[in-house]
């Protein structure tokens, strides 16, 4: 059987169990594709030896008939996850050479579920970015191109290596993380599915911290069914993360009934922004119509504090980042600057951090330092935490009115060309997350589903936002939307 790498998780799982092929064959197919896809710069640390060992073990389990949920399925891991003995840099020069002595809870759970790791994936440095252009590894490239235009396109960010790799069929699925939209925006930019679960669903232990009150891991996959399968393998309580929820994890795949009759889907009027391209508004309307045709009730809702979400985020996230990134001091791991005679420990800290952190990370650490500094803490940080309470309350009010999920565009534009959003204007880049960031601030689950193509031939996504801990219901609604949208386009291979 050819093109095994193009399979979904569910199809590959079924094929493995039916003995149509082995995990070793499936894994080789992916390794071959990765080898040939250097131009995408998606995989940045390949782990073929680990992959082959894991595939062999998986085949033995499959043969014994005792195979766990993801047995033998080859995936990519975002560089933000600590993987034992394998470089883990968060795409930063400051973690050059760092090889963790431990495994993150999420990757450990995936390996326990039988998954095969092909390698580590490119991303924005410390997950700070929306285009994968802040990575120390260089840009990841979107497998999609604009119609008749050879310009390299961003795969989104921060999980840009993950989105590019899944869209280009280098792996069956990948892990991502999402602090303000870093799973959902790259998924939308590459025509794949990405879900950020409720805050607390996935353990953050061993995930390099950016903004701890916002960070969540999630799967990036080729279908909603795959998202359900992989999310279940990633979720669960972990004593090593005090914010991890001690709640049962449902069988998400079994909840994909296709029946959404009577579900109430909210359309928030505040998301109709000025300057959003007509094709995005049109896609949004079409998505609502599809859900209505599937039996859902579409209702207009209001989330009045939406416009304050991005400014709130750009206080809270940098504040937490400045605190989390204080650990990179050149003492315990990673890069240490060379010192001249007479230079002391403060010089070591300052030079190490100036050399090791990229421009955007430095900017955010310093903004965070400023908003937390004496005299400004109340005006900025506490104010933002209060507005965050109001943003969350907007959602609580809507859910209290009986709304089951909220439909919005995933991004305010299709993917842009690399270098087209200027580095000198950070705000313009931040606007990419305008539809996704509210979800992190409110701790809710959100999923991006590919729904159509832009006029210039690039994928567009729609976002569904669910109630806390109701990922199963959310996935089921997303499954209906996926069915109705019938997005089957793939990028034409040029790499």
């Amino acid at each position: 059987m050819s093109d095994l790498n193009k399979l979904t998780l569910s199809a590959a799982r079924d094929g493995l169990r039916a003995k149509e092929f082995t995990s070793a064959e499936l894994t080789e197919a992916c390794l071959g594709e990765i080898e040939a896809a250097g131009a995408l710069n998606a995989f940045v640390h390949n782990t073929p030896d680990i992959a082959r060992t894991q595939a062999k073990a998986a085949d033995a389990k499959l043969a014994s008939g005792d195979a766990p949920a993801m047995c033998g399925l080859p995936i990519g891991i975002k560089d933000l996850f600590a993987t034992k003995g394998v470089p883990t840099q968060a795409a930063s020069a400051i973690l050059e050479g760092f090889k963790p002595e431990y495994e993150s809870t999420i990757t450990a759970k995936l390996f326990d579920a039988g998954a095969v790791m092909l390698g580590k994936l490119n991303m924005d440095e410390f997950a700070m970015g929306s285009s994968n252009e802040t990575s120390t590894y260089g840009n990841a490239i979107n497998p999609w191109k604009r119609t008749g235009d050879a310009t390299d396109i961003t795969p989104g960010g921060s999980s840009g290596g993950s989105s590019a790799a899944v869209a280009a069929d280098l792996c069956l699925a990948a892990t991502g993380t999402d602090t303000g939209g870093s799973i959902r925006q790259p998924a939308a930019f590459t025509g794949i599915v990405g879900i950020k679960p409720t805050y607390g669903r996935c353990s953050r232990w061993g995930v390099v911290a950016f903004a701890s009150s916002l960070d969540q891991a999630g799967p990036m996959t080729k279908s909603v069914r795959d998202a359900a399968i992989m999310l279940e393998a990633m979720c669960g309580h972990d004593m090593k993360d005090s914010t991890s929820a001690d709640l049962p994890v449902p069988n998400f795949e079994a909840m994909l009934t296709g029946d959404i009759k009577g579900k109430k889907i909210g359309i928030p009027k505040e998301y109709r922004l000025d300057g959003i391209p007509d094709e995005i508004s049109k896609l949004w309307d079409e998505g609502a119509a599809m859900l209505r045709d599937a039996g859902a009730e579409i209702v207009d809702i209001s989330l009045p504090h939406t416009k304050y979400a991005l400014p709130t985020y750009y206080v809270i996230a940098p504040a937490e980042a400045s605190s989390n990134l204080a650990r990179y001091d050149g003492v315990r791991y990673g890069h240490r600057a060379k010192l001249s005679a007479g230079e002391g420990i403060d010089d070591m800290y300052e030079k190490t951090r100036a050399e090791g952190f990229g421009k955007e990370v430095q900017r955010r650490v310093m903004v965070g330092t400023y908003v937390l500094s004496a005299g400004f803490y109340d005006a900025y940080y506490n104010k933002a935490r209060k507005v965050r309470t109001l943003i969350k309350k907007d959602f609580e009010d809507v859910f209290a009115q009986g709304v089951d999920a909220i439909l919005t565009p995933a991004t305010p534009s299709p993917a842009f060309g690399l270098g087209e959003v200027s580095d000198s204007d950070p705000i313009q880049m931040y606007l990419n997350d305008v539809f996704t960031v509210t979800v992190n601030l409110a701790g809710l689950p959100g999923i991006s589903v590919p729904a159509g193509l832009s006029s210039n031939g690039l994928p567009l996504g729609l976002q569904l936002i669910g109630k806390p801990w109701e990922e199963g219901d959310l996935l089921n609604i997303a499954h209906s939307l996926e069915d109705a949208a019938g997005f089957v386009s793939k990028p034409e291979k040029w790499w």
Partner: protein
Amino acid sequence: MSIDIDTARRVAKLARIRVEEDALPALADEFNAVLGFIEQLSEVDVDGVEPMTSVTPQRLKRRKDGVTDGNMQEKILSNAPDAREGFFAVPKVVE
């Protein structure tokens, strides 16, 4: 609120990031752009609103206060840029 060069220098120092003198004006401009964007928050009436401490209301789990790991000095030092005789080595701190 406008950030001048002195404030930019002070913030860089607090963040322990070396910024050369000639890069400070551009840094101050960038801060001002970001803070100008954040400034919108002043429009919001937050009277009587509690600042969020936890996005999912839950009591943090407790466990018995006991030793759960240890004896891994080598592992802890394995990634250090400079480790000597079982310690992290740094430039001289005390004269």
